[in-house]
């Protein structure tokens, strides 16, 4: 049995099932990160002093540039499919994958530097919330990379069988990826600058 409304839009919502499902998933993600941001605010408001300058701002800024760049390449990957240019789509999707890998490499060096100095999550309240928020965000990056790897590899076959469905899948992947970028846009100033 075929799953309905993967290409054509539902008459009641005007959306494909996949797209509506992705947005509902993102809504739950907002709740998840919202709860953690709320925790951060409570811990910060309640603390007598809050550390400044513990994190490498330049590394954080580099990672912000990398994620913004990956968001641009992701949306270009989708737009290329809309223009029926699969080769360009593939190039942009690989670029997004590489940029997200670069983000994780930077994060690894950042974590390794802290841990080498004995500054683990148990070291202070600030580092506890830092590792929790960035760790969860990092897991989302890894999740996105797994999906991208699938569409670069075996999932790409769908383009030949059903190009519209493949384009919708890339659009939904893009929605998720832009959300991950959106979270970092707030994490960067909150953790690195303020």
């Amino acid at each position, binding site marked *: 049995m075929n799953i309905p409304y993967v290409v054509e839009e539902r008459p009641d*919502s*005007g*959306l494909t099932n996949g797209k*509506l499902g992705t*947005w*509902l998933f*993102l*809504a739950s993600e*907002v*709740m998840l990160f*919202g*709860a953690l*941001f*709320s*925790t951060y*605010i*409570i*811990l910060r*408001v*309640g*603390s*007598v002093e809050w550390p400044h300058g513990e994190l490498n*701002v330049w590394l954080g*800024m580099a990672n*912000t*540039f990398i994620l*913004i*760049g990956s*968001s*641009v390449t*992701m*949306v*270009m990957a989708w*737009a290329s499919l*809309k*223009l029926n240019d699969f080769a360009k789509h593939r190039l942009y999707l690989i670029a997004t994958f590489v940029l997200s890998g670069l983000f994780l490499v930077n994060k690894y060096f950042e974590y390794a530097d802290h841990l080498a100095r004995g500054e683990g999550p148990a070291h202070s309240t600030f580092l506890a919330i830092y590792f929790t928020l960035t760790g969860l965000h990092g897991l989302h990056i890894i999740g996105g990379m797994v999906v991208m790897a699938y569409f670069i590899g075996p999932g790409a076959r769908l383009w030949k069988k059903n190009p519209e469905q493949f384009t919708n899948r890339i659009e939904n992947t*893009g*929605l998720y990826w*832009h*959300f991950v*970028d*959106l979270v970092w*846009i*707030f994490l*960067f*100033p*909150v953790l690195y*600058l*303020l």
Partner: protein
Amino acid sequence: MHADAESIRKSIRSYLMVGAALFVFTGITVAVNQIHLAVPLAITVALIIAGTKGTMVAAVFMHLNHEKKWIYGALLLTVIGFLILIFVPLLTVGNGIGTPLNVTVTHGAAEHAVR
């Protein structure tokens, strides 16, 4: 959403412009941080810039500037839930949750508490 190739090409231009603007705003955020403003002002400026960047990503990259009403409905519920998550727990700050406790427990008091 996008009817023809021409409208996609127009969208690509806006994607690239928004991407460039996001780079610039990130640079501005870091530059403002180097000035060492007073903490409340620094927080305000940083969050205004982050909010602007977030709006650009959501509106242009995630196409929220022209979406279906079901998506807006789901997002409205999300905003309500998010505001509850952000602000309701702040009420507990008045009860001392999150404040460091400076309680010295004497041996006798601890024994009393155990009993």
